[in-house]
Structures are given as C-alpha cells and as structure tokens.
C-alpha cells in the first residue's frame, strides 16, 4: 500500500490534489522537531551527567563515575526523606482535592441563589500564582502572631499554632491543596453537568435516596473525570517547588524537602551536577510510571 492510498482511506472526501496532501501534512514537522529536541537532548544529558563526576565549583572532579552518584544517592538519608515527602505530599493532596472536589462539584451543581458567583469565587485560588499563594498563606493566614488563624485561635482562648515549625509538611500540603482543590472542582463540575438528569430522575422515582444516587449514578459517571484529575494533578504535584522554595526552603531539617527541592539544592546550591542528575533520573522514572497510565486513559478517549 502506498502512502497516498492510506491517506485516501483515512480522509475520505479529501479532494486535495494527490501531490499537495502529503506536503500539507508536513506542516506538523516544526512542532514535532522542536518537541523532539526539547525531550531528547536534556534527557540524554541528564542520563550522561548522572554517570559522571561533575562539580561546577571544582573543575578537577571529572571523569566517569560509574554508579557512584546513584550509590551516594541511595545511602543519603535526605534522598529517602525527600522521596517520602514527595509521595506523602502527592497522596495527601490527591485525597483532599479529589475527595472534597467531588463533593463540592455535586454541591455546586445544585441550584441556589447566586450560584454562578459562588462558583467563580470557589475556583479563583487556581489562578493565583504559586509564590503569591504560598506567601499569603504563610504570612497573612498562618503567621502565629499576626496571621488570621492565630487571631481566631486567640479569640477562642486557644494557643495559636506555629504552623511551619510544628507541622511543616502539613502546612505545605494545606497550601498546595488550596491551589488544586479549585482545579479538581472545575473539572469535576464540568463532568457532573453532563450527567443525564433523566437517569437520576428515574432512580429517584425508584426510591433511591441522595446517597444511593451519589454512589450508584454520580460517582460511576465521574470515574473518568476523576482519573484525569488524578493523573494531571500527579504530574504537577511531583514537581511542587515554588511553594516550598518561598516558605520553608525544605526545612526544618529535611521535613519539607521533596525530590524537586532536593535536586534544586544539589544542582544550584551545592553545584553537584552528577548527584543532581542522578536525582533527576529518579524523578523522570517516577513521572513515567504515572505517564504510562495517563496516556492510556486519554488514548481511550481519543478512539471514541
């Protein structure tokens, strides 16, 4: 089969002259080429550096390092702490945003006065840049003396909490959840709105209560949207950086150091290119495990 006949098969009714159709389909090439370079070059470099001795401050350290960078990484307690923090952050934010997001999507689908304004207010945090979100929470909300939470606590006669020293990781989780809950709400609300009302009406006629309707009709209908939210949030949550950078700098100790922050510190604070690259390879592997499932989910959608 020649290339043109395949094309005629996939695009019936395309009256373009046979010669120009392939030429036009080449217009995709610039995008493909830049993305290919953008993906391959840094990937190969990261891999290459991860097997090299390379420190920006010390030009005498060079040469092949074998698996030394990886060996050093897995014996470093900070690495395991960062891996744990990355996963705890990921899991907690996912549970909070998807759980609450589903409930809120159902809530905001009910008619009530001023619903559109309320929706707009509720999704607003998603548009706030990460550095602003983190600093507003850290200073205006969670500051033990001047923050709103401290003031409220004192008003009720309680001891204000010094969030970032007592519960550092939980504080970061709170801030990141505040940013991503609106995202989950936005996507899930869109999905809830496409739910067939007749189906729900029929269920109600048959005597299904609110809770039964939620579990047997709404939730199954949302399953695809929920998986999409989980996948997309996962991509971003594996690389949470700015929120940690401006609030805790990974501390106290390594309490809020995630993989992204560890790599940043290795590369740009300690100038250990080899070690940072080994961390980068781990981050890429982690993301690819997730990517595998996301691409499959979206691919299914593309066939329909």
């Amino acid at each position, binding site marked *: 089969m020649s290339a043109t006949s395949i094309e005629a098969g996939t695009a019936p009714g395309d009256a373009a002259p046979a010669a120009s159709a392939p030429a036009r389909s080449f217009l995709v090439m610039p995008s493909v080429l830049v993305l290919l370079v953008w993906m391959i070059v840094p*990937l190969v470099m990261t891999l290459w550096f991860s097997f090299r001795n390379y420190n920006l401050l010390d030009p005498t350290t060079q040469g092949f390092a074998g698996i030394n960078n990886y060996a050093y990484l897995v014996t470093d307690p900070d690495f395991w702490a960062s891996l744990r923090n990355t996963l705890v952050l990921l899991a907690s934010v996912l549970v909070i945003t998807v759980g609450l997001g589903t409930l809120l999507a159902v809530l905001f689908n009910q008619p009530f006065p001023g619903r559109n304004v309320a929706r707009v207010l509720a999704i607003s945090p998603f548009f706030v840049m990460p550095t602003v979100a983190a600093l507003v929470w850290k200073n205006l909300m969670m500051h033990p003396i001047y923050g709103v939470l401290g*003031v409220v606590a004192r008003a009720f006669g309680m001891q204000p909490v010094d969030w970032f020293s007592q519960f550092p990781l939980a504080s970061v989780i709170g801030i990141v959840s505040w940013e991503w809950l609106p995202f989950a709400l936005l996507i899930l609300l869109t999905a809830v709105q496409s739910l067939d009302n007749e189906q729900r009406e029929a269920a109600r006629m048959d005597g299904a209560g609110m809770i039964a309707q939620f579990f047997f009709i709404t939730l199954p209908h949302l399953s695809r949207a929920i998986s999409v939210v989980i996948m997309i949030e996962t991509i971003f949550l594996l690389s949470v950086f700015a929120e940690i950078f401006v609030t805790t700098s990974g501390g106290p100790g390594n309490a809020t150091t995630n993989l992204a922050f560890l790599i940043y510190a290795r590369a740009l604070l300690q100038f250990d290119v080899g070690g940072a690259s080994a961390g980068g390879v781990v981050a890429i592997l982690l993301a690819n495990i997730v990517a595998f499932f996301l691409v499959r989910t979206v691919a299914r959608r593309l066939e329909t």
Partner: protein
Amino acid sequence: MTDSLAKRILVAVLGWAVALLLFFPIFWMVLTSFKSETDAITARLFFQPTLASYGEVFARADYLAFAFNSIAISLGGTVLALALAIPAAYSMAFHPTPRTRGTLLWMLSTKMLPPVGVLVPIYLLFRTTGLLDTRSGLIGIYALMNLPIVVWMLFTFYKEVPHEILEAGRMDGATTWGEVYHLLMPLTLPGVASTGLLSLILCWNEAFWSLNLTSSHAAPLTAFIASFSSPEGLFFAKLSAASTMAVAPILIFGWFSQKQLVQGLTFGAVK
C-alpha cells in the same frame, strides 16, 4: 421541584460558605493591600484605607521591570507556541495521516517529563549559550512547555470546522497559507483566542523555570513575589499590594476562560 425548603436553604448556605472560605485568603490579601503597615498586622476589618503600599511598591524602581518581563515573556511564549501549533494542528486536523493519532499522543507524553528531571542540563545549556536570565530563554522554554496543550486545543477546535469549506477555498485556488489565513483563522478565532488565553495564564503563573533560570534582568513577577520570602515579607501591606497587582489580571482572565481551561488542561478528555 420536590426538594424541601430546608434542603434548598442548606444547599445555599453550604455553597456560599465553601465559596467564601476558599476565596477568603484572596479577599484578605486585597483588603490588607489597602491597609497601612500598622493596620496590616491586625485582623481589623474596618480601617482607614490607603494606597500607600501600592505607592511604595511602584516606587521600587524595579517593579515595572518585573511586570514588563511577565508581560513580555507570557506574550512571547504564547505567540511562539501558537506560531508553531497552528500549522501543526491544521495539518493534523485536515490532512491526517496514519501517524496522526500517535503523534498527538506522543506530544501529550512530552508533558510528562518533569521539569526537575531536566533542570540540570537546561541550566547548563542556558549558561553555556548565555541564555541564563534572558527573556528570550524563558520565552523558548514556555513555548515548548505549552506547545502540546496548545496543539491539542487547536486540533479539537479545527476538527469542528467542516472540510467542505476549506475544499471550496482550495477549488478557488487558495494557497495553503490563504486557506489558513483567510478561511480557517476567521472561522476559529474564538478558539485560537481562548487557547492563547490559557497559554498566557500558564506562562504568567509558571514558577519553576522562572525561579531557577532568572535572577534580576529577566525575572518576572513570580520571582519578584518570591523576594518577599525574606524578612521583607513581614511588611504585610506591601506584600499584599505587590501580590494583588501580580494576581489581578490573570484572575480576571481566568474567570472568563473557565470552559476552555477544562478542555485544554484535560486534553479534551472531559467535556
């Protein structure tokens, strides 16, 4: 409606309570930006409003430079991404080949490469080529970062344009350029605009590359706000004024483009 009055009241109260709670930090930030520094560290709701903090932020000679960088980088990244994506989406939507589906999925998969994974090589490449702390460097990164999303969104919009219209143009002797520029562009302008808007929002709020690849010359507002993480952040009113100005334009854009956002961010998987 068979819903009881009690249930409807409960829904309204709950809905508004959640909305106000989620919005509260933003409200408080805007409120604090109009306070004096001494009022700002109190939880006072009523105070003598002042624009002093805005004045002080503006008086910092470099504020406008940061704001200009944000605008230039976001616009530049978006225009570059659109310039690459429009031909690509056109070709895939109207002249599909057996590889088109695979190409689309592969483009999506490039989004899965975590930025931290390639921080080291990008930083070194930028250092060697003198792109570190330049606007053009970030524009390139942002265009590449958003290219898959932009191609996908345009592809879904183009898919809805009937082939016959473009064919008629072709019969009349339109060149490929004429076909895209005179026929496709006017037909899909709202789609292109909302795609651009989404790209602008993502560029404006991006805070991994901007924090790591810029220091002073090309630093956008995300980096400017990060500089308040020093003890300077304890000037609550100034922090709030700077934050409000950094967030306001994109917040308003965001309110208007919710629907497109859902499609773009989920690669059309949720409608």
